[in-house]
């Protein structure tokens, strides 16, 4: 086997930045192998990807030392467009990558630039459409596809250039479990074709099939090795801010032999060594819901149609949310979660049916009254941040609502303390990290002290540590009596924090109940293309009530 990529002592600092983004990276990737790159946010994963096709140092300039060789070509000496023949690069955000008017043209764009004859382009499109499951979408506009389909299109539009090496930067971040599985399946098929793959991921479990895992920490390679070595090395993973695979953590804490990644391996180990005896899941005696009995939000036969489409995005939702609940809205991309949530604060008005907020129809409120009661944090914090300082940003809502100045000061301080950003008042929010901007967005909603907090995908794009601190903060707010509703595609987050889970499918509610009971119904979840995390599936198999490693350790060990 020959070397596909060779990185020789690469150091790179973005222009205008003192600290290097990459430091002394040394590594080789063999042809036909899969390398998975893991690390905390800001560890240099994306920069490393960009250095493989020349975006670093041609597009992003800066201090560049060392060499990157791709198939014996020095990357820094070639234009990005030239390197694109050898290295296909799928960026983290799929939206800006899809700029054509239909699927076919999107896939043709790369080969067109390679000056391939029309017939050849046609053949390549024909060949890759079925591989990526996009046959029936050939003439569709990319914007009308679901998240998973868009990501597959982004990959296929790079594949039609037939690069030997494919680099994907967090290809599954925005996807539901099924979309994620589809992308991983494509990676498997590409490996059968002997292509070289480098994948950045946030979830260590996808590294199970890799030849090598590289762990990045603060711009350097902290550890490198086979999945068995790296994923079992709990201290190394933790020091790099990577989530420890839950099953490995469980087995290690329980002092059980083995380091299983998949549920199948875990159940086999449990049976082989007689570690625990599966029992029947008992229904809970006390309701985990801490709602105090009165409805804060009620939907009655809620139907919603988007003006431009004929289909019903919500088809007759009947739902009541109690004061003080912690609800997770889960479901496939496009199942109607966000559409439903936008009705909670009347950003959308029902086409028919009613939404009651504290017993009064949202259409009977003034928008300002609603924003005092229901706070809504958008998925992308950059959509709402616009002030020059963090203080002004957090104070904006209070000012528009006409609060007196001394009260504004107090509430801003309080909100910033809650999100752990005290001391950043005078900073520009745009200069903060993504995780911090997310917190500013939450603080600016919190300052108004709404009774209900709705958060759309609050953990997307955050690494393990930032996810945890954000979710712990929500837990505290929930403890103080706020009703918290999150939309999430992370089954781990839903299982660990929510008291109630609502599963949506095609604009209707498929399952609704206490989180433990919902996650026990794996077959029904399958209908919504969802699958609980491996730990929860093990818990289902064992018949334990646990939804987190700690709970399970307590339940089995105690």
């Amino acid at each position, binding site marked *: 086997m020959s070397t596909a990529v060779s990185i020789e002592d690469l150091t790179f600092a973005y222009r205008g930045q003192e600290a290097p983004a990459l430091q002394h990276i040394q590594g080789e990737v063999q042809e036909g192998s899969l390398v998975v790159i893991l690390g905390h946010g800001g560890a240099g994963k994306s920069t490393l990807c960009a250095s493989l096709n020349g975006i670093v140092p*041609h597009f992003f300039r800066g201090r560049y030392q060392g060499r990157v060789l791709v198939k014996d070509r020095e990357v820094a000496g070639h234009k*990005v467009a030239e390197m*694109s023949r050898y290295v296909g690069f799928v*960026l983290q955000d799929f939206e*800006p*990558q899809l700029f054509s*008017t239909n699927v076919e043209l999107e896939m043709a764009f790369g080969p067109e630039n390679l000056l391939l004859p029309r017939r050849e382009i046609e053949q390549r499109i024909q060949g890759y459409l079925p591989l990526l499951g996009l046959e029936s979408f050939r003439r569709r506009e990319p914007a009308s596809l679901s998240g998973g389909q868009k990501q597959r299109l982004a990959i296929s539009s790079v594949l039609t250039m037939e690069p030997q090496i494919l680099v994907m930067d967090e290809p599954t971040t925005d996807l539901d479990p099924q979309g994620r599985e589809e992308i991983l399946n494509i990676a498997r098929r590409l490996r059968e074709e002997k292509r070289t793959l480098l994948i950045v991921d946030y979830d260590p479990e996808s590294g199970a099939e890799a030849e090598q895992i590289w762990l990045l920490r603060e711009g350097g390679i902290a550890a490198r090795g086979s999945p068995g070595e790296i994923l079992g090395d709990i201290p190394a993973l933790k020091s790099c801010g990577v989530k420890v695979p839950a099953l490995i953590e469980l087995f290690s804490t329980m002092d059980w032999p083995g380091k299983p990644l998949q549920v199948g391996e875990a159940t086999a180990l449990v049976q082989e060594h007689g570690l625990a005896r599966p029992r029947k899941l008992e229904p809970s005696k006390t309701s985990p819901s801490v709602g105090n009995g009165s409805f804060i939000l009620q939907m009655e036969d809620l139907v919603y149609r988007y003006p431009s489409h004929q289909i019903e995005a919500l088809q007759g939702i009947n739902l009541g949310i109690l004061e003080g609940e912690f609800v997770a809205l889960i479901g496939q991309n496009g199942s109607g979660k966000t559409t439903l949530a936008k009705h909670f604060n009347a*950003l959308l008005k029902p086409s028919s049916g009613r939404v009651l907020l504290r017993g009064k129809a949202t259409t009977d409120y003034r*928008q300002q009254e609603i924003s005092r009661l229901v706070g809504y944090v958008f998925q992308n914090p950059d*959509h709402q941040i616009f002030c020059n300082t963090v203080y002004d940003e957090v104070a904006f809502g209070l000012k528009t609502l006409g609060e007196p100045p001394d009260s504004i000061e107090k509430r801003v301080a309080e909100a910033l303390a809650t999100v752990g950003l005290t001391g950043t008042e005078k900073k520009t929010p745009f200069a903060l990290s993504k995780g911090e901007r997310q917190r500013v967005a939450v603080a600016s909603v919190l300052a108004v002290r709404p009774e209900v907090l709705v958060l759309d995908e609050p953990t997307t794009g955050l690494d393990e540590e930032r996810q945890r601190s954000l979710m712990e903060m929500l837990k505290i707010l929930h403890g103080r009596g706020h009703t918290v509703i999150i939309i999430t595609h992370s089954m781990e987050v839903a299982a660990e924090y929510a008291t109630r889970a609502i599963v949506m499918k095609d604009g209707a509610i498929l399952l609704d109940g206490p989180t433990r009971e919902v996650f026990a119904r794996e077959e029904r979840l399958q209908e919504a293309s969802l699958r609980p995390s491996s730990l929860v599936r093990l818990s289902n198999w064992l018949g334990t009530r646990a939804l987190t490693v700690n709970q399970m350790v307590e339940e089995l060990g105690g």
Partner: protein
Amino acid sequence: MNIFLYLDRETPIHRLDPRTKILATLILFSLCLCFNHPTYLAAVSLGILVIAASSRALPNFWKLRFLLILLFVFSALMWPLFARGPTPLWNWGPVTVSRESLLYGIAMGLRLSSFVMAGLILLSTTRNEELTHGLIGLGIPYPVAFAFSTALRLIPTLAGAGATIIQAQVSRGLDLESGNIFRRMGKFIPQAIPLFIYAIRYTNLLAMALESRGFSPGAKRTFYYELRMAPKDYRVLIVLGAILAAALCLRLGMGVGAVLPGRL
């Protein structure tokens, strides 16, 4: 939110070569400039509406109805104050409105809406890539044509982001329901900042994506959709060219079709 203008339909106009459609649009523009009499311009507008109906582009007209009506009403009201004609109707201080200037205003309203409608037919029936390709076929340099079509492509993306940004601010208590029109417009100013930052970020990523897919401006490339001028393309151009020639004859040769002959 979907505000893309292209409508994927199978009509004879969709199947025309993009170069034909671009030239035809230019001919329609010129035709609008030939007359300033409302009756003649009404005939041109009606013709454009018939073409729109046959290319099944009317849903887009409906989508942009407010823009079309606004353009018409504004110019019909504003022009009479500036254009001067021989037959005075009202005299109100320094402001004089004549019969001709009133008609001229209506004609200008029709002309502006016709411009927009002709452009709208082009965008409803021509894919962005075809437009780029057509412009290159007409001799426009590739980087210019590509920049033009990318700018068109960005409008819906930015409009979508703008809508999300406004929703985000409304849910934080921004009150867009009260106040007069100027105060309300003032409230939109803060929205420009996140939109601006979004646009910079987006175009940066777009540039990265383009380069990663082998794009380099000015280099030769294949065009997946073939351009081919069919006999019907020539027929369309000949018919439209003849209509334009006849119109020029009427206006320049015979002096027909103008309420204010001295003005365009």
